[in-house]
């Protein structure tokens, strides 16, 4: 009988026992698939609060091995706090959108790029580069922000249309 969690041998690194690892698992009951941070071991005695993990192996994943894991985190630690993001969006709406930062290095490099013609201004350079970095480093956050913004604009439009009726 399968354990509470199921994963594939392919999802385990070489020699995973004793290490804190991030792996993809399925919940045996709901079949939901998600990433967790955990310690895994074949011997439950080596773990603090072991739960059963079935590891499937073989070209058709039909060979099962019984392992155990200690769950450390059930998300990737970067899960977006939607309530906080929404509140931040409302705050920024009432504030100036100028971002101040003081750095000789950054200013020099941005100005160089601007004078080379890669950007129209230092302001445009900093905006473009920051947004590109945010999209790469925090894709879930950017995605959630876009969803909330679209939803907010849709609600605003819907209520304006209703008022116009």
């Amino acid at each position, binding site marked *: 009988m399968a354990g509470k969690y199921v994963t594939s041998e392919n999802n385990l690194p070489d020699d995973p026992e004793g290490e804190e690892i991030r792996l993809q698992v399925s919940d045996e009951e709901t*079949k*939901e698939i*998600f990433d967790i941070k955990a310690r895994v071991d074949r011997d439950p005695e080596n773990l603090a609060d072991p739960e059963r993990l079935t590891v499937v192996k073989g070209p*058709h994943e039909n060979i099962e091995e019984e392992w155990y894991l200690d769950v450390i985190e059930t998300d990737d630690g970067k899960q977006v706090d939607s309530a906080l993001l929404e509140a931040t969006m409302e705050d920024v709406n009432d504030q100036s959108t100028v971002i101040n930062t003081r750095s000789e290095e950054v200013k020099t490099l941005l100005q160089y790029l601007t004078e080379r013609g890669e950007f129209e201004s230092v302001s445009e350079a900093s905006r473009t580069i920051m947004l590109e970095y945010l999209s790469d480093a925090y894709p879930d956050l950017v*995605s959630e922000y876009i969803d909330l913004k679209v939803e907010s604009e849709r609600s605003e439009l819907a209520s304006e249309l209703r008022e116009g009726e």
Partner: protein
Amino acid sequence: MTADSLREYLGALESCGDLHRIDEPVSWNLEASAVTLLLNEADGDVPLFEDVDTARLVGDPYRGSQRRPWDRIALGLGLPRDLSYEEYYESVIDRLKDPIEPRIVSHDDAPCKRRIQTGEDVDLLDYPWPYIHAGDGGRYSNLHTLIAPDPDSEWVDWSYHRSMIHDSETSSVLLLAGEQTPNLYYYKYERRDEPMPVAIAVGVEPAVQYTSVMWIPTGRNEAEYAGGLKREPVDLVPCETNELMVPASAELVIEGEILPNERRDEGPFGDYFGYMHGPRRSMPLFRVTGITSREDPIIPFCVEGTGVGETENATSSMEVGCVGPDATLGLRTAGFDVQCIAPWKSTPRTVYVISTETTDPSYLHDMANFIFTTWGMLHVDFFVFVDADVDPLDQRAVIEALALHADPDADFHQFGVETMPKVPLNIYQTPTEKGDIQTGTSKAKTAKAYIDATSAGDADPDDRFRDDSADIDRRYRARRILERAGVETGDLPFAETEADR
């Protein structure tokens, strides 16, 4: 009369005594699929599970009877169930020749908009997607229409690609390059680093479901062909969160986008070959942005893998009842003389049998080339050509034709050796040969084949080696065709040059 919705079709099944309603609560976790599997094997009724947590399930609703796999599909088109396969085929072909433009309906007139989830409300796990086989990598939606647009034209493709549910907002989709929608994704959207807008319409009306398993040529309006099958316009309605139009009569619509350069695990899954197939592979990620549905939606599913041997399921029956007539029309439109094409019973998609009046070897080779470079590229391994008076659906007649007329020396032809893409769900390639490449198909390309089991190939032995100058033109043409297919013809007795003709 053609059914306007899945519900209406199930009502028609019930009127014929072919629907079995199950009121007891049933689990989506293996139980619904187990009941369906047993009914498939027993050639029994179609099961409608009325109480599966939050919605309803129906197992293999388009499964035909084992003796006449097209009969329930005919019911969905308002055709008599007792038509012979020839009559059924020609009726469907006639309808496909007469496409009808779809009609746009308003939000309020669209049954699929009774419940709407967008933004934070979206939760795929609100619905009882079935866990179909023990050992599957996850729960699946596997009887639906996937709608995706060409970014460079007005064309919108309707097709079918299984999707494994991950969590509330994401699933992975089996996209194999060589098929129309995967080609759009891999070679256009992903190369441009753009998401592909997608809608998965679940529990669509029969005419739409049938069209989505057919091969409609690239650029043609799929909704028009569905209208042709239905003999009236299909109603479409705009999505909530993207600009796609979806069938208004669907039970449930999942809106979203398939993201570029993101992969998630997909599989293992027991697919149409009849075997549990793994290991899991990396497939594109579908991110859900909206879900709309009818009240108390019915989600159809297919116990994939049971459509082999004597047993039918929705896939195997739709191959006979939908792909067969469509492929026949396609070949006739391309100028080939084809009596009938049908999948060889027990092998959904893998082997097709083609009956034809014209049996000239170079003609058959041209036909094989056409099929292997279009709808047969990925899933079809080989064809058998038979005479026009052989019934492709008659197992015995086909085997008899093979035994009597297929000369192993002259009539077994390999095609495109080491160049043809392969669906990685096959069971004869090794895991290494299959690999896990970016575009989904097997890493190792293979050959295709066709067998000439027509009687006209049985030439008089004395004639085979005659050196008749009237044959030079034909031999030269044969050489050119083989060379285009990548065959080395240097040692073959063909005309050497144009001057020899």
